[in-house]
């Protein structure tokens, strides 16, 4: 955590529940009470049907690797080695950007559609980032 020099998310009223959950080790998503659409990133309404009735819930944390690049020019604070920037598809439907941890950062090790599970990485006292690691890896 002390090493992190990258951009730090600044929660807004609409995203507080997500970041509070991340700090507790929970991946929070929202679902529309009316049309059951699963919503990410957080907002207090449904972009599918415009209902203002949405509820937060703790997601399973399970995902699969949808796509990625391996960044060979890491920014300051990300160490000298190439690292993967990934798009993961959550079991509940939404996709999100993340990093893949506990895994070689190579095309051979990073196989599309491989099963993943969420693991939270604290970067400040208040903010923990959802990252993903191979299931059973």
């Amino acid at each position, binding site marked *: 955590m002390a090493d992190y020099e990258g951009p730090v998310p*600044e929660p807004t009223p609409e995203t507080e529940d997500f970041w509070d959950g991340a700090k507790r080790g929970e991946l929070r998503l929202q679902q529309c009470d009316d049309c059951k659409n699963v919503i990410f990133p957080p907002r207090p309404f449904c972009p599918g049907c415009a209902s203002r009735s949405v509820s937060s819930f703790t997601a399973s944390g399970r995902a699969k690797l949808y*796509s990625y*690049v391996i960044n060979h*020019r890491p920014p300051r604070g990300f160490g000298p080695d190439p690292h993967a920037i990934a798009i993961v598809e959550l079991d509940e439907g939404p996709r999100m*950007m993340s990093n893949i941890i506990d895994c070689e950062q190579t095309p051979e090790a990073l196989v599309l559609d491989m099963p993943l599970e969420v693991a939270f990485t604290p970067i400040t006292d208040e903010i923990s980032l959802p990252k993903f690691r191979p299931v059973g890896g």
Partner: protein
Amino acid sequence: MEPRSVAIVGAAETTDLGRIPGLSQIQLHADAALNAMQDCGISPGEIDGVATAGETPANIAHYLGITPTWVDGTAVGGCSFMLHVRHAAAAINEGLCDVALVTHGESGRSRVGSGRYAAAPASLAGQYEAPYGLSGPPSMFTLGVLRYMKETGLTHEQLASVSVVQREWAALNPRSTFKDPITVEDVLNSRMIAYPFRLLQCCLVTDGGGALILVSKERARDFPTKPVYLLGTGESVETPMISQMEDMTTSRAFRVAGSKAFGEAGITHDEVDHVMIYDAFAHLPLYGLEDLGFVGRGEAGSFIEARNTAPGGTLPVNTNGGGLSYMHSGMYGMYALQESVRQMRGTAPAQVPDAKISVCHGVGGMFMASGTIIMTNE
């Protein structure tokens, strides 16, 4: 828009392209605007509409001495100028202005008088993308390509062939930054930037600008230049966060803008003689060819590899060399428009013989926005 109701009568780029440390960003706008005014023989006092991105319309109008009755500051990244052309056509047809000027200038390389982009920490991109070790567009715009490769069978060699073919076009253009021929092997041996993308699959970073002047078809007869008529136009936006695209192997914004423009133009793809597809990275022409409907799903890689878009091919694409070899200031859309105008005027360095219809397609942000302009010289 009524097809052919509005024409581009003035078009020019900055006097120089590439490294221009002696001009600030706003002066690059002005240099291009003055060249475009000279191109069609008018003065700032005759211009009453201003559209721009990167600078505000107020900055440009005041700097150039224009008193506008219509302004447009739509800023959706590199295709903003396609949207400006579309909006200018609507404004002219509605009588909001008579002579519209669209300007672009960007000190992308020398960074004189230009800002830097970073997502605000409280924005959604700042919260849900920025912390994951991004190094700008090369590490983000490219994120969907491995998925595209898995779903369509696109090979690394086919993706590399995009850069090879565009270098062939660039070799025919004296103003291109890079002209030396390259091979698929050269591309695949160039420095890794963000796997699977290597240096020769990423655009240049240069300084430059461009400007366009539009009037009604009736006014166009008063100008000395060959009018280039707008035949169809389209625009859309999808998401400011690439991670939130509906499908990372195809652009919704491309499909919406493209089909709108083709519908308005009332043409089929077979009638198109020339195509520009904004190529910040080598996969964009693939997405563009498919999402605009020139080829089917997953066919673009083999289509380009088979030299259909190369010099002498059936569908010339990115005939200036593109963002990969010609120039790329950051918001490249203006240069794609300039090349389409040159092709329609018959003055392009790599002129497509008898070209009558040009499709010019732009992207903004990283699949955030899109604009399509179809032009004709008939």
